[in-house]
């Protein structure tokens, strides 16, 4: 039993304790900027932020060596809420920018934060090439099945026939399957997490950061403001389930089969090793000198 708080400042007492815990135990304040996130209350993106801070702290990656690149959309604002080096790039272009940064400064830890419209719509052309080049960076695709920042239009992952502001008679297009795409494009680390399980997500992010190569995390997160029918916490709670214990994440065929399964599996689908983009590019110099 904790003692009764002194009269007049109970909240303050509570906050100080939380802050001390966040600072010392979780290191959150090492990575948080003074700007408060502009996401809606209840948005799943807060969970990624916390998971990312905790991961960086645990892996002892200092803020000064962290570069977070983002595109446009709600997730685009991610770097503003972090204390690190942030590049808020153009719509869809986080992957080339992140690849360029990592290529010339391999000692940095680089993240590319992309959205579903951002990474699978306007910037989809960069996705296969990032995957096949295998730059050593972590790409998190924040998928809420909707365009949030422009207030509720159809995105490339919005389900077929769903009614949105831009498709009042239903979405005529089939949705894309981001995990399946990453697998067939040749990503060396492919996982899926969701906003309702932030602790699991943190484990995935930690594995992704440790992985040498292009790590792709498909992160499902409800848009609490503009999607009242599809990607809800309650729906995802029922639809998602962990990959079976017997899932072999070294087996690409199995991973592809599970990615195509109507069940929405979460966890690590696939992991393999391949020389990174920088490994190959930097070895050209040695080869060049020999010839």
């Amino acid at each position: 039993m904790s003692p009764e708080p002194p009269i007049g400042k109970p909240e303050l007492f509570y906050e100080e304790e939380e802050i001390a815990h966040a600072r010392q135990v979780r290191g959150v304040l090492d990575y948080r900027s003074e700007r408060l996130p502009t996401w809606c209350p209840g948005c799943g993106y807060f969970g990624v932020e916390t998971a990312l801070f905790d991961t960086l702290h645990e892996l002892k990656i200092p803020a000064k060596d962290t570069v977070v690149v983002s595109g446009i959309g709600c997730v685009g604002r991610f770097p503003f809420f972090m204390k690190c080096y942030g590049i808020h790039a153009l719509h869809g272009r986080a992957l080339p920018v992140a690849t360029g940064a990592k290529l010339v400064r391999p000692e940095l830890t680089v993240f590319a934060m992309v959205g579903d419209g951002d990474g699978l719509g306007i910037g989809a052309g960069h996705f296969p090439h990032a995957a096949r080049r295998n730059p050593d960076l972590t790409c998190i695709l924040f998928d809420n099945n909707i365009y949030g920042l422009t207030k509720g239009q159809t995105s490339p992952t919005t389900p077929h026939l769903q009614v949105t502001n831009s498709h009042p008679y239903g979405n005529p297009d089939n949705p894309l399957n981001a995990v399946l795409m990453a697998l067939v494009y040749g990503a060396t680390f492919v996982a899926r997490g969701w906003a309702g399980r932030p602790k699991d997500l943190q484990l995935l992010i930690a594995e992704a950061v440790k992985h040498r190569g292009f790590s792709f995390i498909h992160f499902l997160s409800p848009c609490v403001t503009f999607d009242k029918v599809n990607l809800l916490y309650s729906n995802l709670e029922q639809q998602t389930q962990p990959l079976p214990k017997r899932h072999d994440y070294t087996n690409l065929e199995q991973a592809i089969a599970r990615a195509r399964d109507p069940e929405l599996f979460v966890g690590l689908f696939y992991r393999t090793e391949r020389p990174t983009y920088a490994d190959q590019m930097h070895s050209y110099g040695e080869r060049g000198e020999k010839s």
Partner: protein
Amino acid sequence: MRKIDLTVEICGSAGDGTLAAGEILTTTLAFQGFHVLSFDSYPAEIRGFGKCVAHVRVSDQPVHSLSGTVDILISLDDSYSIQQLPTLQPEAVVLFDNQPLAPVLEEDQCIAGHLGPGMILYGAPFHELSQQATASGRSRNLVALGAFAALFEMNLEKFLESLRQKFKRKPRVVDEVAAAFNAGVDYVAGNVLKLDEFSFRRDQESETAAYELLTGNEAAARGAIDAGCKLYAGYPITPTTKIMEILSEELPRHGGIVAQVEDEISAIGMVSGAAAVGVRAMTGTSGPGLCLMTEFIGWDIMAEVPVVIIDSQRGGPATGLPTKTEQSDLYMALFAGNGDAPRIVVAPTNAGECHYWVAEALYLAEKFQVPVIILMDLFLSNRNENVILKPVPQEKLRANLFPTPEELAKGYLRQALSERGVSPRTLPGTENGYWVISGLEQDIYGTPVYDAKNHTNMTEKRFTKLKTALAEDIPPATRFGCEGKADLGVMSWGSTTGAAIEAVERAAAEGRKVAGLKQLVLNPFHREPVARFLDDCKQVLVPELNRGGQFAHWMGMHFSREFLRMNQVTARPITHTEIYNEIRKVLEQKP
């Protein structure tokens, strides 16, 4: 000794080895100590059809442009060469294959029937000699060169030296081509009586030994290396691909990387990412690629990221004329993008300047945290000329001024306002130097804000740094031709400038009051020298390779002045003869 200023043209069909022969001839003439400027004209298709022409201008004086007239024509395909006849001088010499593989059925298909009365024709069986020497007709271009070398008294040793250089990766071929070459030499020695007076005999070594033979693309690539460029990302596009190919081989030896990426957006994206974290980075493209890069140019201006973009212009719009030259991307280079987006635009005028200004652009971009666009064109990219490269000054290899750790500990603002318009910069890896850069308008604390005062201040800052660049680094336009008041001034930019210089100097040497102005940096530029030039000239002529008069317009935006325009969309470079003729025409039409 008689002054030499001759143009040799080799004309054939795609697949005849026309351009290879032109390259070997150019190299040999340069080895012999001549000043050369050569340029090829070729179709966009690799094989099958299309006329290929190699132009080589040779002189014992420095040359800056093509002459537009031909003194010696080597015909590898008469049906195409006949089309070249209007450019031949009255006393031109023509060398042709008098026993081609495809027999000439009608008289008018053979060039022999088309020559003017003062012209001299030499024939040699190129194809037959090639077959005798190499058991194949493929080396008829070399036979032609051998005949040419013998006829015009060239140094045969230097010829063989350039053959070895050209085929250094295929040593087995060297003997074969040398045999074909010698067959041409021997044939002329035994069968041809020289009737003309042209000669490329060169008895003493000249000062051009210090020169290098480079294309604009090669020079630009060297500039990137010399200035410490560490990443070049690009997507293949004529005529800039060669820069990427050269750097792919060379940059890794200098600690750099070349990334061939999926499109031009990715190219400038990678370059922007690399530049943002602190290395010198650049990309190169042509007009269609610059279209795709446009959004990123604006982003680089907003986020203050130092990138360098080469746009080697070709005929447009759209895919346009991929293998033909034009100067029609000036508007795009100056204005492309949304919003008020000031950037530096430079247009080098020859290969030496391509080298120097790529290096300088990397320096300026870094110093002022702004994109620099370098406007080359297909003519400049591909033409071969002998140049002496200016070394890149040591102090230009570093332009960043980083805050000290003590200053950083007191608080650091990436977007701080300053008198020079340049904010202090830090790079990832620096303690307490955190920043977020963005395409959104940010306040000095880095937070996106949309208020009037901040947007006004920040816009002003982006313009101010160009003013600072002007005051601190950018050279003024330079004048050439006659001194003092002039009846006619010629203003030009980019690769047309060489032709303007030669035309104006020729007119001035004849006593005409004609002056010219050479402007290398097109934005920002010093007003005063241009204003003074405009005041000095009764009329001003602006020759350029576009229909709209883009440079004349750009000047017209700054000075209230009527410009006489000389616009060509002929898909080939303007020659000094054409500008000279235009100068005479304007001067003779007294207003």
